[in-house]
């Protein structure tokens, strides 16, 4: 049974300039113990869809989905208290900005013990012991002393380790990591990614890694979902995706990787992700796509079958000959 199943998820924000659809008909599947990477540029709606799963969107957002189940439970039907028993417990999330994601008024130890107090029936001593154990797991030296520190006394990398310790405190079945390394130094980035994959292997939890970095994807993920302007445009195993991308956007992203560059100048994707006021008709990627024709610009593309990476494209790349015929 899959751990997380989402069908047709859409999220719309009410803004002063009218409604804005940040996530558009997205499907997500994660199996227990699997690492899924969700890739896309800024503004592609990858964080928003996961915040919707967590129930953390502001009141201006409207969430609709045909299905949204975690571990067999329908997240849409849960009451507030019932949802809060799952969130932070079996379903945990860490965020992009470790420095601002921890409350400056409380010690990091307090903030972790608080999660333990809410979701477990450990006593005070057990909670303290668990905190020390967690800090050792995430590689924070001198745990007893660090537990008494305030977030601003720790570095960004340390704070992200604290966030991870807090997220895995109650042994979640699924951990969502929203660009966990973007705000960190390059050397620390690799450490945090290694830590996340190691913890994932140790505990057997599912891991969703939201990132815009294809390099990160290649190193860590098992399966990749590519998002563009709120839509999922492709979904494949990581090796297959790198070998035979089916959506032109994926192909362009991969071509922009320095490791794959064949020419002297690094290829780029012209233009920017469409915003609220300039959404094209038809395929959302058509203004930036080198293969686009009038069909692409006029008609919304279909979702291709599994064999073609569920690409949302009229003319998927690397299609077997018989499929094109």
């Amino acid at each position, binding site marked *: 049974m899959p751990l997380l199943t989402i069908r047709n998820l859409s999220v719309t924000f009410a803004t002063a300039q009218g409604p804005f659809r940040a996530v558009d008909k997205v499907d997500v599947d994660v199996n227990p113990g699997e690492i899924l990477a969700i890739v896309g540029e800024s503004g592609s709606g990858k964080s928003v869809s996961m915040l919707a799963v967590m129930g*953390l969107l502001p*009141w201006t957002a409207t969430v609709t989905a045909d299905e949204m189940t975690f571990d067999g439970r329908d997240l849409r039907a849960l009451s507030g208290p019932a949802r809060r028993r799952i969130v932070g417990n079996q379903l945990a999330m860490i965020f992009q900005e470790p420095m601002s994601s921890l*409350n400056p008024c409380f010690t990091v130890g307090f903030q972790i013990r608080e999660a333990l107090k*809410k*979701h477990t029936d450990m006593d005070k001593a057990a909670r303290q012991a668990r905190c020390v154990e967690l800090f050792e797991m995430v590689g924070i030296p001198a745990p007893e002393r660090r537990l008494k520190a305030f977030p601003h006394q720790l570095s960004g990398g340390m704070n992200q380790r604290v*966030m991870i310790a807090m997220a895995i405190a109650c042994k979640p079945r699924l951990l969502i990591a929203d660009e966990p390394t973007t705000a960190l130094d390059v050397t620390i980035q690799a450490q945090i990614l290694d830590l996340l994959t190691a913890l994932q292997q140790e505990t057997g939890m599912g891991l969703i890694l939201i990132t815009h970095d294809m390099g990160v994807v290649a190193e860590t993920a098992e399966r990749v979902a590519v998002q563009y302007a709120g839509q999922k445009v492709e979904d494949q195993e990581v090796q297959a995706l790198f070998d035979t991308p089916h959506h032109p956007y994926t192909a362009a992203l991969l071509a922009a990787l320095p490791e794959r560059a064949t020419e002297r100048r690094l290829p780029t994707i012209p233009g920017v992700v469409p915003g609220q006021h300039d959404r094209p008709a038809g395929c959302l990627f058509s203004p930036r796509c080198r293969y686009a024709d009038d069909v692409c610009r006029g008609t919304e593309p279909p979702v291709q079958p599994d064999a073609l990476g569920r690409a949302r494209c009229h003319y998927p790349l690397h299609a077997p000959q018989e499929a094109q015929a």
Partner: protein
Amino acid sequence: MLKFFLSRLATFVPTFIGVTLISFAFIRVLPGDPIVVMAGERGVSAERYEELRSQYGFDQPLWVQFWEYFTGVLQGDLGESFITNRPVWDEFFSLFPATMELSIVAIIIATALGLPAGVIAAVNRGKFFDRALMSTALIGYSMPIFWWALLLIIVFSGNLGWTPVSGRIGLLYYFDDVTGFMLIDSLLSGQKGAFTSAVSHLILPSIVLATIPLAVIARQTRSAMLEVLSEDYIRTARAKGLSPGRVNGLHALRNAMIPVITVIGLSVGTLLAGAILTETIFSWPGIGKWMVDSIFRRDYPVVQGGLLMIAVIVMIVNLTVDLLYGLINPKIRKR
């Protein structure tokens, strides 16, 4: 923390000297001869004028006058009232408890109502309750309190006859000052009905005085809460599955309190300004009424001394708030 304390103290000293200089300058430098004013309509003979000038030291160079004034201030000597001939220092401290009692009660009312109102409004942002509360707060904030006082007198003292119009306590009661706070002294005196009388005298003035700080605190708490509620760490707290009560009441309020404490502290200045109007209208025998009366009587040493003392009190309160701010904000406390 010690460094923070010392840096605050370092700005306190020059400001204190400046405040002394200004209250000194007001009377000596600006146009208008204090002795002529003091003599009033009867006028003064030339010999007597010179005599008075040297008596008050007005014949000395300005910087000598200031130096003498300043060293006097440091020893608690603010001169003597032209009218009563009592030391300004003594007059100030015999009236100050009345103002303090009124201000403390007002700030308690303002905080006890304003803080919860702001939190509730922020949490229910955009809903009916928020809009009703914030409209009321804006009306309070825009209120000309001298008119508000008259209106309350018309309704509660005139039409309903519930509260007295002026003073601190009924004429029937007499007892010695112990603390200077009428509420406490009336209890200590043991006289029947004295405490009730003190309360009924205090109620309208303190409501009037609390009005603007109440509105300011409610508005500031709301906006501080709204700002904090959009912070990343609130999302983290919610991601832990904490209840809304804990997220809002602990994680958000603790951070929102930092600016709100500052606002409460800063409203002491507003409060003392408000006390001038409130005390005048309710004939409350505190320093506000004393200052206004002295201004009209051209009792310059009193105006000068009172101005200085009030400024120093505001500065001390601000310094305390700054230090308190350091205490509740761990970013400053633990460096």
